[in-house]
């Protein structure tokens, strides 16, 4: 298969690289220009954006629209809490265990929920999350419904938490870009756009979906471990809450589903709204719900789609175009 990546456009590639490098440098140099308020805001932005990047990998690229990724928020958070509090693990080794455990549990979860299609897959995944929520809420070893404190986490320097947060976000964006530019990315998008046609061309649909699901779940668990370090408290009703899926889908949809920059833009909007309206809940959520309905009906490609129309250009080069006059075929 000959890859038909967007024709190399040197000036654009240089501008892209320069903008990305400036953004990354600005984030890395945050202690120089920002105080604790900026740090706190950027940590919240980073983990929300990373969450949306992982949700977008599923819904935007693999066609797996799910309302059940809170399973892996809860599992990631609890792995950290139980690892540190019950097994004397260090915080950072617990991150690794969280990712591995989430990947392992994603396999049976996917095997069951992939039997459902479309909207029923979305709700079926939510149902699985409810099972986890109820089981953890009745399980004394994990502190049942009252939850657990992670005492070790209090000793961590907030700037370390910050670097882990932006590190996770950058790594996840890089992972998605690399995946999209690979053969696997093509297979994922083929499955999303036309499952039967993809299968007839030799794409192993089930395996490709499961691979995306395992990767996104491990990523989600890492983010959850970070969130739990920052809190540093976990409780089943909030860890396995549907609100995580509501937030992730809002960010991906409003920012632009199926684009790399979309979840980042959506996360910026989400964090700003939360900042303005207060995180107390009801009003914030009413605005989120209404905005996502209007966005879906009026501009389903999100802010990224609008920007692409205006600028004719996007920050990450992952689009592929059919070869115009060259003789090679896909």
């Amino acid at each position, binding site marked *: 298969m000959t890859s038909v990546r967007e024709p190399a456009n040197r000036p654009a590639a240089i501008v892209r690289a320069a903008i990305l490098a400036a953004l990354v440098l600005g984030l890395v140099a945050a202690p120089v220009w920002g105080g604790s308020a900026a740090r706190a805001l950027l940590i919240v932005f980073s983990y929300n954006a990373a969450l949306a990047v992982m949700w977008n990998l599923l*819904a935007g690229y693999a*066609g797996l*629209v799910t*309302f059940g990724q809170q399973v892996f928020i809860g599992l990631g958070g609890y792995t950290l809490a139980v690892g540190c509090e019950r097994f004397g693990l260090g915080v950072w080794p617990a991150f690794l265990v969280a990712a591995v455990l989430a990947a392992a549990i994603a396999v049976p979860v996917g095997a*069951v*929920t992939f*039997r*459902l299609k*479309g*909207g*029923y897959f*979305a*709700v*079926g995944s*939510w*149902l*699985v999350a*409810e*099972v986890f929520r*109820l*089981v953890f*809420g*009745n399980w004394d070893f994990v502190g049942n419904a009252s939850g657990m404190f992670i005492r070790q986490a209090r000793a961590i320097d907030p700037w370390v938490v910050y670097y882990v947060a932006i590190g996770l976000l950058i790594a996840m964006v890089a992972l998605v870009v690399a995946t999209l530019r690979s053969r696997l990315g093509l297979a994922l998008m083929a499955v999303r756009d036309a499952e039967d046609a993809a299968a007839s061309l030799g794409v192993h649909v089930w395996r490709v979906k499961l691979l995306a699901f395992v990767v996104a779940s491990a990523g989600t668990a890492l983010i959850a471990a970070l969130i739990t370090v920052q809190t540093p408290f976990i409780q089943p009703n909030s860890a396995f809450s*549907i609100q995580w899926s*509501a937030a992730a*889908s809002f960010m991906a*949809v409003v920012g632009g*589903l199926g684009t790399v920059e979309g979840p980042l833009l959506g996360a910026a909007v989400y964090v700003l709204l939360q900042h303005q309206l207060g995180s107390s*809940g*009801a*009003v914030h*959520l*009413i605005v*989120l*719900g*209404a905005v*996502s*309905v209007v966005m*879906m*009906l009026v501009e*389903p490609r999100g802010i990224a789609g609008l920007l692409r129309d205006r600028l004719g250009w996007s920050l990450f080069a992952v689009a592929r175009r059919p070869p115009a006059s060259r003789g090679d075929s896909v």
Partner: protein
Amino acid sequence: MQLYETLINGLLLGGLYGIIGLGLSINFGTMRLVHLAHGDLIVLAAYFFVAVLVPAGIPPLAAVAVVVPVLFATGWGLQRYVIAGSLGRGVLPPLIVTFGISTVLQNVLLLWATADARTLHSPLASAGVQLAGITVATVRLVDFAVGLACLGVLLLVLGKTALGRALRATSDDPSTARLMGIDPRKMYAAAAAIAAATGGVAGVLLAATSTFYPATGSEMLLVAFEVVVVGGLGSLTGTFIGGVLLATAQLLGARLLGPSYALVAGHLVVLAVLVFRPQGLLPRTAA
């Protein structure tokens, strides 16, 4: 004897679950829509009934006659002006739109009615009747009878009337139905309205049977989903049988494992059905 009592109660609670599932089943059957706000419409009806109509001095039975048409109109309007625009564009848009509606409804209820538990205070709730040697709550009996009656009416409407024929034709093949002079958009709005009206009935029964909160909408959606998965997607009779099975599983789970395991037991039975019989118990054969 105790097991027998559990089974009878499961059967009766299944009537309520069945009617909770009917709306989801109708929406899916006609337009392949998984309506994520259906549970919130049920809870909206319950609040309208308990927090608006009953305090206004309207007798409960007359209030029902208001709730159901209002929900019918709400379902029609939501479909025609909001959800319709998301259909036919893939899996994601209707999910995001109905989930957004759900979030808005739930939080508007939270702002307006607070998170306090509500219920209909009526003599019905505490009354019991002797049935086949055991005492069952009268309200459960009412739930079951009303649920069964709704199913009967729906099957008659869908099976015997011109509207039902048009709905089934649209469900099978919208473009051919259009050639026969049926406007699919009107049929979809009609289906959504009927589904929301069943949600209105379910909301009244919910209010009379148990306590509810704004967040109960999500629980209702999951119950509806489970009932539909167990019964078979798109089959109304299957939905009802699914309701009975789910309720029995929950009550057996509560009896054998303890009250806090009722929901888990129900969820696990549904997941087992997914693994071993993904088409459900009564799958719809055609379309």
